């Protein structure tokens, strides 16, 4: 299942947030989207599954094997959600309904996608629990009775219930401590390669991106500023922001980027990083062209 995003722009309440996003994920590829909080990473994920907040206006094309998702009706889109595109959310405890047992929630989603008997759905739910490393006895446990790591595993099991070909993991596991994060990452890796699905990992953890993904993109203020192979992106970034972002959390110490991310409502027409960029020149007042890998004048 290949995903290709062409010139995606999203306005929320009249304010342009995402601007000219171009992105391609090949079949079975693992792709990371990196960037600080508020860069629009989650909005990008929501625009792919078309669950944008009310008052949003997306433009551009999101091609999933040639079908433009932006041109589908909500009914057609609903058939793709969960079945073709699975999604794992950041906070597992709030993405599970507190009133139902974990197993029954997985079984419910199974029945949403496959016309099977309740018993068969329960069997499939137990299989998914095993697959994600949750003890099968915890089938009847309610979300609050599970640890954060277990909840995240259940959320992944739910995302897998419809056999998706593309899994979007929005900060999956980021809310956990580092060791559990790594285990969730390993789990994601194994289930994704087992099901041969493509992975779109949205994260601000370079460690996870490097461990899981072969290619990645860095986002800043609603735009992709650089796309490259993972080693290249993290070891030899070319865009000034990508460079400073990687440097900011390098092992040699914490070096914050001076200034703050711009307000979306009062953004100038030029390069969005220009006000904070140490290499800014006159031409940066005009929007730099997107060459397919770096969005910078140099």
């Amino acid at each position, binding site marked *: 299942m290949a995903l290709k995003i062409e010139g995606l722009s999203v306005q929320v309440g009249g304010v342009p947030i995402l601007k000219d996003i171009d992105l391609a994920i090949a079949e079975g590829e693992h792709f990371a989207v990196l960037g600080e909080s508020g860069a629009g990473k989650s909005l990008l994920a929501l625009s792919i*599954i078309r*669950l944008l907040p*009310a008052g949003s206006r997306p433009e551009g094309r999101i091609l999933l094997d040639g079908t433009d998702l932006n041109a589908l009706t909500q009914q057609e889109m*609903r*058939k*793709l*959600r*969960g*079945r073709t595109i*699975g*999604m794992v*959310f950041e*906070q597992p405890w*709030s*993405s*599970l*309904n*507190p*009133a*139902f047992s974990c197993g029954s929630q997985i079984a*419910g*989603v199974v029945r*949403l*996608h496959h016309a099977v008997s309740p018993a068969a759905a329960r069997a499939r739910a137990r299989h998914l629990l095993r697959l994600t490393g949750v003890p099968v006895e915890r089938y009847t446990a309610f979300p609050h009775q599970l640890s954060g790591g277990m909840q995240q595993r259940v*959320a992944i099991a*739910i*995302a897998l*219930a*419809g056999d998706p070909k593309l899994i979007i993991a929005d900060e999956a596991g980021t809310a956990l401590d580092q060791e559990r994060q790594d285990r969730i990452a390993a789990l994601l890796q194994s289930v994704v390669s087992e099901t041969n699905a493509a992975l779109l990992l949205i994260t601000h953890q370079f460690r996870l991106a490097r461990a899981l993904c072969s290619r990645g993109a860095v986002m800043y203020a609603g735009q992709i500023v650089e796309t490259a192979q993972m080693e290249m992106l993290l070891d030899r970034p070319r865009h000034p922001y990508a460079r400073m972002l990687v440097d900011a959390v390098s092992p040699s110490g914490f070096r914050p980027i001076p200034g703050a991310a711009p307000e979306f409502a009062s953004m100038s027409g030029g390069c969005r990083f220009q006000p904070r960029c140490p290499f800014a020149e006159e031409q940066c007042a005009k929007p730099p062209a997107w060459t397919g890998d770096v969005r910078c004048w140099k």
Partner: protein
Amino acid sequence: MTTSERFCIVAVAGIVVLALFGPLFAPNDPAAVSVENRLAPPSMRYPLGTDGLGRCVLSRMLHAGRVTIFAALAVTATGLAVGTSAGLAGGYWGGRTDAILNYVVNVFLSFPALLLALVFVSVLGPGLHHGIAALAAASWMRYARVVRGVVRTTRQLTYVQAALAMGAGPFHIIRFHLLPPAAPALWVMAVFGVANAILALAVLSFLGLGVVPPTPEWGAMIEASRPFLRTHPGLLLWPAGALIGFAATLHWAGETLRRRERLGLEVER
């Protein structure tokens, strides 16, 4: 479970048994008129005496209980179904649907419920079915309000968004994520609703707009007792007592349920 809750269950069970099996214990035909026995005092044949037409008061009481309970349940079920559907639709889809439904709810709420019911019955004409329809039309708004509120807050939660992201349609979302959190408040309101419907039906029948004679009904019996109030007060006291007993027991049950569900004052009676 506390002692009070046990008593409450016994009392409600008593009402249910009376409603289901009461008529089986009736010693006489509730509609059998016998002029020679009119206004008879209690006797072996007529345990509670007879009314102005010589009909057995106990038999009429027992039959009336069944009529009343089933009519009140029908009122509540209809109101609950209509109100819940309206609340779900408005809360789920929002926008124009919500605005229109909200407007209708406000219009209905702006009249006293009984007045509204009277208007409906005067349009439809008297009769038990019309009375049920009228009272349901005057009671659905409260359920709609409560459901809409719960749905609007619940819909924003991440797990509902997550379910949407998993391809859940409106039916799945409503069934699994939106109705369960609204259910406790709805049950409590429904119990109060049955109690209020019993009283409202009696009022309609008292005014001659509810059941059509000779169907026995407590409100109609109270009305029929008026000419004999000074000489035969029992004709008033028996149906009035039954009415108060049923309504009070159900209010008690509703209050108990509310306390058990730990619901605050937001549940209206």
